[in-house]
C-alpha cells in the first residue's frame, strides 16, 4: 500500500503532497498518510471528502498529535479536475 509522510510539513503543503500522491492512484487503491499536526488532519479530511476520496480509518496518538489516515480513491474521485 503506498504511503506518504507529511510529518513536519507546513500547511498547505500536506494537502498538496497528498493530493499529488492520490492523483497517481486508480479507483479502489488506498493511500496511507502519516502526519503530526491536527489542523492538517482536518484539512486532509475536508480535501478528500470534497474530491470523492473516502477517509477510511484514522489512528491518532493524543500525546504526540500524530495521526494516520487511509484514503481510498473512489469511482467518483475528481482530483485531476481540481
Amino acid at each position, binding site marked *: 500500500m503506498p504511503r506518504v509522510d507529511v510529518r513536519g510539513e*507546513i500547511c498547505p503543503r500536506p494537502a498538496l503532497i497528498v493530493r499529488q500522491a492520490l492523483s497517481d492512484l486508480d479507483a479502489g487503491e488506498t493511500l496511507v498518510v502519516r502526519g503530526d499536526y491536527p489542523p492538517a488532519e482536518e484539512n486532509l479530511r*475536508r480535501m478528500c471528502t470534497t474530491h470523492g476520496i473516502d477517509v477510511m480509518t484514522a489512528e491518532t496518538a493524543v500525546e504526540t498529535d500524530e495521526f494516520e489516515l487511509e484514503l481510498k480513491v473512489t469511482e467518483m474521485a475528481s482530483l485531476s479536475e481540481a
Partner: protein
Amino acid sequence: MGRDAATVGDDETVRLTEYTELHGCSCKVGQSDLDSLLADAGLTGDSDALLFGVGEDAAARKLTDELALVSTVDFFTPIVDDPYDFGRVAACNAASDAFATGAVENVDCLVVLGLPRELTDSAAAILAGMADALDAMDGVIAGGHTIMSPWPFAGGAISATARPDALLTSQGASPDDRLYLTKPLGTQPAMGATRVTDEQFVETVTDATDRPLDRIASEAVAWMTTPNRDAALACREYATAATDITGFGLAGQSRVVADRSKVGIELTHLPVIAGTPALSTLFGYGLTDGESAETSGGLFVSVPPTATGPVESALDDAGVFYRAVGRVTDENGVTLDDPTIEEVRR
C-alpha cells in the same frame, strides 16, 4: 523608530514566515483546548470586579458611570513575509478585540514582540508598521516589551475606552436579529498560497484560480490591515452583540455568539476574497463552510430587524464594507445550508 516603509520594510531576503511552523492564526490554541485550559485553571466564572472578561474578546472594567476601560492582548506568529505589513496586521488584529466591544476611544498599544536573533533587523519595520496602524486608529504605541524568541511573534496589549452602556459582548444576540460581517473571508487560503514557492506545486496552486496569486494576497493584506474601528463606531449604537472573526473562522465565532447568547445562528451568505474559494478547496481549508481561520477579520454584529436601515446607512456613511450574512434564530447552534458565496474584489 523608522517610519518609512520603503526603507525599513524593503529587505527582499527576509521571509518572516520561514521562521515559524504555524502561521498567523494557525498558532492559536484551539477552542476546545482553550475551554479545557480555562476550566482546569478555574477561570470560567465571571469576576465581580469586571463588567465582562474571560470568554469575551476583551475585558471591561467600569471606572465611572461615564467611562469603562477595555483591555485585551493578542499576538501571533507571522502570516506575511514583509515585516512592515506583519506589524500592521498584528496591530489591527490586536486592536480588533477592543473594537469588537465598541471601545474605540483612547486607544493605547503596548507592543509585545519576540524575534529570533536572525530577524532582529526586522524589528524596526515591524514596529513602524504597528505605529502606522495605530496612527490610523487614532491610537498610540505607549510602550512594550521585546524578547529574543526562537519563533517570531508580534502583537500588543490594547487598552481603549467607551461609555459603559455602549459596550458590546457576544451575549446580547436575540432571535430575529440580522447578522452583518464587515470584511470578506478568505485570508487563510490567500496567504497559504503565498507560502507555496517550490517548483513542485507552484503550478498547481497558480492554476487553481483565474486570479493572480499576488493580487489575491495583496487584497488579503489590505483587508487584514483595515482597522475595525470605523465599523465599530458605525455599528455600536445599533448592535445587540458583536465579536470579530479570527482563528476560529466565521462558523467558529458564530458558535461562540450562539452559545453565549443562547440562540441559534443561520448563516446564508458568505462574502469571500475573489479567488480564495478555489484555493481553499485545493488546501482543504473549509472556507465555504465558514471553517477557514481568519486573521484580523471583520466585525460580526447582530442588529435588531428594526435597526437594519440605520446601521446600513451608518456603515455606508463611514465607507465600511459590510454584508448581511444571516440571522439569529430561537434554536441553538449554527446552521450553514448551501449559503450563497459572493466573491469580492477590492
